[in-house]
């Protein structure tokens, strides 16, 4: 409660409500008859000042006591409240106005400037229509229009890009003044096969409209020119466009478009062969060339590249020759690429669940199919190598144990039976590796071994075991429970009781001694544990 204010006046009123005595102010003669009977809070105006009146009747005489407190005086005395209120009000108003101004400045100005910019850009007939639209409407309409135009432009760009490639190839074949190692075309035709970058040096496309390959000689000239350009690049030490992931290997991809270029097809082997020799002699680079099956349109190049990739893998595996034609591999092999993948998936699953027998069964089926294909051995070996490659890609963690000697062994084999034997060894190794990894990772086995070794130790504890296998006790306890479904303490007791039972069958020794022998500090604890696990007392068991 607030203290009694010094400005409060005490009045004495007679029965008519007239003030006849006052203390704290001159209120004699004041008529408060109108206020005296009101029960609510009343105010009284006197000489321009408002007073809060409170009345109380005398219980003895016909008088009424009144207290008059000037409201304004009270407020002045408590000006802190008023000051805080006013200052807070003013601050809120000022800060609010500033914030409003700043927000409008920050948000509206860019909007307005954008609209102005658009208006300036689109001044004139058919310009920006802003009447009846908000700034948002104007900008949104503009952006929609822009997006539509951009979409059209992108379509145009795609068409232009295709046209550019076509024109480029036309120039390449007709004039022979550019080669495909140029960066823009490399980017256009670049295809990345799981990190193996195949660099195209020539691509031929049949275009019926342009009839680009009307003469055979143009292709020959073009090819020679391309090779010459590549050599020039390399002579100038510009290796980068030609390098693959192997720093010492440069792989060229070569696609032909039409089969009737027989003369060119024949000559290309000799040309590329010489090129390989030249690379080896001058740059110490191993050049591998893969000549693909022909494609009749640039959109079919990825399919051709798939075959080239398979051929490339085979080429790497066989290392027999620097120049390989995809057509040298049978049509069956191309279809078999999918079969290899299917077998690879099945084998990976079998290895993952340590189903060695299943894995060997799958291998048998694979080799039976290989034998039935009646391919030449080189193609068969290619497929085996492709399957190995797929396994390496899919199960690199399990296959990491494979060493290069095992893979090289595939290359040394000279018939299908030997190849199968080597491959089976490889699969068995992968399954075994899987088992070992699982066994090695089994924490519960380590814990069990530790318990079996130290069960007789009275002080055997979780902490001791955890310290031995260099893990935290909490972690060991949790993992052991997860792996075995049994608490570590329960397991220790089970082992001790088992050992005790074994001893009881072969030795006649007192319970106390038996308890100490299996790691219990006293017979009472041993009996309790025995009864808990076996359901009977040790004596009953012995009897």
């Amino acid at each position: 409660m607030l203290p009694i204010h010094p400005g409060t006046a005490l009045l004495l009123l007679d029965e008519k409500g007239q003030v006849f005595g006052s203390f704290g102010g001159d209120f004699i003669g004041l008529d408060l008859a109108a206020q005296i009977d009101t029960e609510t809070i009343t105010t009284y105006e006197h000489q321009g000042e408002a007073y809060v009146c409170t009345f109380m009747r005398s219980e003895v005489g016909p008088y009424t006591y009144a207290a008059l407190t000037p409201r304004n005086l009270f407020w002045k005395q408590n000006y802190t409240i008023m000051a805080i209120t006013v200052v807070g009000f003013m601050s809120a108003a000022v800060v609010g106005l500033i914030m409003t101004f700043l927000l409008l400045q920050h948000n509206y100005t860019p909007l307005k400037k954008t609209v102005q910019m658009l208006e300036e850009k689109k001044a004139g007939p058919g310009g920006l229509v802003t009447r009846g639209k908000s700034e948002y409407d104007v900008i949104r309409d503009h952006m929609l229009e822009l997006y539509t135009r951009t979409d059209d432009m992108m379509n145009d760009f795609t068409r232009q890009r295709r046209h550019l490639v076509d024109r480029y190839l036309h120039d390449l074949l007709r004039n022979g003044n550019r080669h495909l190692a140029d960066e823009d075309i490399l980017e256009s035709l670049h295809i990345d096969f799981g990190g193996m970058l195949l660099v195209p040096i020539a691509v031929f496309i049949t275009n019926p409209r342009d009839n680009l390959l009307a003469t055979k000689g143009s292709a020959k000239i073009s090819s020679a020119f391309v090779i010459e350009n590549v050599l020039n690049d390399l002579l100038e030490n510009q290796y980068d466009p030609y390098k693959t992931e192997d720093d010492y290997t440069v792989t060229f991809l070569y696609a032909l478009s039409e089969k009737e270029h027989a003369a060119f097809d024949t000559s290309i082997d000799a040309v590329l062969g010489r090129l390989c020799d030249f690379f080896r002699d001058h740059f110490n680079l191993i050049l591998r060339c893969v000549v693909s099956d022909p494609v009749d349109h640039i959109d079919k190049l990825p399919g051709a590249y798939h075959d080239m990739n398979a051929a490339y893998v085979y080429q790497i595996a066989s290392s027999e020759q620097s120049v390989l034609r995809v057509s040298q591999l049978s049509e069956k092999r191309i279809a078999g690429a999918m079969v290899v993948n299917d077998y690879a998936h099945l084998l990976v699953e079998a290895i993952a669940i340590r189903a060695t027998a299943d894995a060997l069964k799958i291998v048998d089926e694979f080799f039976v199919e290989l034998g039935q294909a009646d391919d030449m051995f080189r193609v068969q070996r290619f497929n085996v190598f492709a399957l190995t490659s797929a396994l390496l890609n899919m199960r690199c963690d399990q296959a990491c144990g494979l060493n290069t000697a095992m893979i090289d062994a595939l290359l040394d084999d000279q018939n299908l039976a030997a190849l199968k034997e080597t491959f089976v060894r490889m699969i068995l190794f992968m399954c075994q590796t899987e088992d070992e990894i699982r066994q090695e990772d089994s924490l519960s086995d380590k814990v069990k071994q530790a318990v079996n070794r130290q069960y007789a130790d009275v002080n055997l504890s979780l902490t001791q075991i955890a310290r031995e296998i260099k893990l935290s006790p909490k972690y060991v306890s949790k993992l052991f429970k997860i792996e075995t479904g049994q608490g570590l303490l329960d397991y220790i007791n089970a082992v001790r009781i088992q050992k005790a039972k074994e001893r009881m069958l072969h030795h006649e020794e007192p319970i106390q001694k038996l308890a100490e022998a299996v790691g219990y500090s006293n017979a009472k604890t041993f009996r309790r544990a025995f009864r808990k696990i076996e359901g009977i007392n040790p004596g009953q068991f012995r009897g």
Partner: protein
Amino acid sequence: MIKFSPGRLFKISRTRQRSVLRKWALSYLLILIIPIVCFVIVYFSTSQVIMREIISSNSVVLKTAQNTLDNRLHSAEQMATAIMIDERFRDVMLKTNSSQDIIEKQGELISLIYNYRTTSYAIDIFIYIHDIDYGLSTTTANRISLLHEALVHYKDSVIDLDSWRESLLMPTGTARYTVSNLHAYDEFGKAAIVYEKSLMPSLFGSCNSVSLFIALPIMDIARAADPSRHGAPASR
């Protein structure tokens, strides 16, 4: 005269540019209103709290004043009764029938009411005996006419004798409070709450008709309830 039509209004509003500026400004200002409204609410609630506190503190003051002042008024009533039933007073009033008897006993009576005055809050005790037109105060006793002369000379009284005598007359057996400056002798002219009481017939039978005036000074009473002197109560 342009006739109002909704179509015209619609047309105008459609062609005008709809800027978001006005909406934004309006929304920001609406947000600005929130703290202002809060402060207004706080202001008025504070005002109401202060008003309640004023009333509460005033009530305490008034309660204190009521206790103090009612106690004094009550004590005046008690003193009047005590004087009335005082044996010495009754002896004089019952056993004497002439003014001569009262004059002989007046010293004793003056001493009596003097003693009463000194032990109370009263500033003056005055007794008017109607039958013999005689007045007694705490310092003197005499006929009313002589007392009136003394008041005229020494207290600058302007009231005439008959009016004063009439104000001193009271119906038998009544008692009341008045605010007056006439019902005293020693403190004549001072505004006071006067407790007036006439002799009760049941007590005094056919004795002299007597009026007793006990004057309590208003300023002293008001001072007794001085809020600043009492200070703030400990609790509501």
